[in-house]
């Protein structure tokens, strides 16, 4: 990236300067400008300091994907996981031991879920009820005959009870 016209400050060219991406002639011009420009010298120092700070930051692996290692391995072009390249953060590719342990865990969870489903099926449900209408009708009439007219309340239950139609 060439610096701007002579007399201009380096600006974005500072980053290219630090990355050693300038052509030789442009680099010479930049060096000449820096020698006489305290502003650009200060900015160059700030950019360099920022880069150093980023480099010394710790790198953390991201969470394991939910769909398991086998799936990651199966994704074309993703060797060992979804790496993120320059930052260096990637899921470590599990070895055969870790993969087996993971399968055992999943199998254990599946067994627990199956056991829970079986227990749910075997648990006593609320009972099925078929109310006995004649019996309940007798109970009603007996109670009603205590406070209402006993003759007209009890005579109907002396008839063999049949609910219809």
């Amino acid at each position, binding site marked *: 990236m060439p610096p701007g016209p002579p007399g201009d400050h380096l600006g974005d060219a500072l980053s290219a300067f630090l990355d050693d991406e300038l052509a030789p002639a442009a680099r010479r011009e930049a060096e000449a400008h820096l020698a006489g420009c305290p502003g650009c010298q200060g900015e160059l120092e700030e950019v360099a300091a920022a880069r150093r700070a980023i480099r010394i930051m710790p790198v953390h692996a991201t969470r394991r994907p939910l769909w398991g290692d086998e799936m990651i391995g199966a994704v074309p072009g993703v060797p060992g996981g979804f790496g993120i390249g320059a930052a260096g953060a990637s899921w470590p590719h599990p070895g055969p031991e870790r993969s087996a342990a993971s399968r055992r865990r999943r199998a254990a969870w599946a067994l627990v879920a199956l056991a829970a489903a079986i227990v*749910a099926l075997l648990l006593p449900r609320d009972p099925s009820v078929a*109310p*006995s209408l004649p019996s309940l009708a007798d109970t009603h009439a007996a109670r009603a005959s205590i406070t209402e007219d*006993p003759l*007209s309340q009890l005579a109907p239950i002396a008839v063999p009870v049949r609910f219809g*139609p």
Partner: protein
Amino acid sequence: MNPACRRLAVGCLAAGTVISGLVPAGPALAASGAPAAGPAASAPAPGTSAVELLDRAREAAESQPFDGVVDVEWRDGRTQHSAQVPVHSAGGVLRLGDEVVGAGARRLIHSSDGWLTLWGHDVAALGPPPTAKYQLAVEDGPDVAGRPTELVLVFLAGSDRLRERLYVDRQSGLLLRRELLDSRGQPSRSVAFTTISDGSSAGEGPGAMTVATAPGPTRSEEPAPARHLGPSYKLKSSIGQGYRLVGAYKAKGGVVQQFFSDGLHGLSVFEQRGHLRGAETSLAGESGGGREVEIAGHTMRAYSASVGEAVVWESDGMVYTAVTDAPWMDLAGAVKDLPHADPPGRLRRVAQAVVSLFRWR
């Protein structure tokens, strides 16, 4: 104290505000077969109110000796049914057919296992006076079973539609005929004496019963007062049009009965935990399928019988059965005030089962 007597004391106070019917002094009964005239059997005094007549009828049914046949008629849909029941009363024991006995506060029914107690104690709460809901009037009635009567006409308060007719024997005070009327004024259910005599023979002889010698029960299904109920049981203080809670009881099989009264009719709501499978509709092996009805937007199963009307439904893991001797519309109105959620779908039932895994039982 007889409940009828207790209600008389309460009912007469309330009756004065509404009851306007005056009972003309009836002619002396000339029929030789008239039930014996005891203290409660004397002809009603002029001015006797409808409430007094009804209370007197309740008392007479338990204390007057008589012998007769009662015709029970009811209708379900367009089908009319009727059955005759011989009735005997002597020594304070009321016998209806060979299967039902009332002796004091005891109610027994005979089954293949012997005598079964359905009820066995007096009650303290009597419910509202009939005048809280109804307007009663008294006029001269026709003869019933050859006996002159006072006719009690029952209207809903504030309405001129006749709901019920009760014919009370002028001499003995017995209720000789009771007719529930439908919306067209036609009898939908009735209980009526076709013959009646003084029953003097019923209280004599080796087979005669008294309250003390009434059949002893082989077993009891008498419900116990329900003092503590789980949260799944929904107690209501009143439902429908004028039905007030009079008592709540626990019966066998976890059945809870709430008994409501409007002063003339009873309405029982039975609650059982579980899911509705169907309904046993007959003791004798005959089964009736009932009919589908829709109440408050929910489909339920309704039944008609000699005893009255019944409806069965399920809501939130409880099965409800409501039974009444009142007209169907009263029952439908009461059911509207009770829980009636639709049964849970399959997914919800599975979710409930999974949740129940983590619930202490």
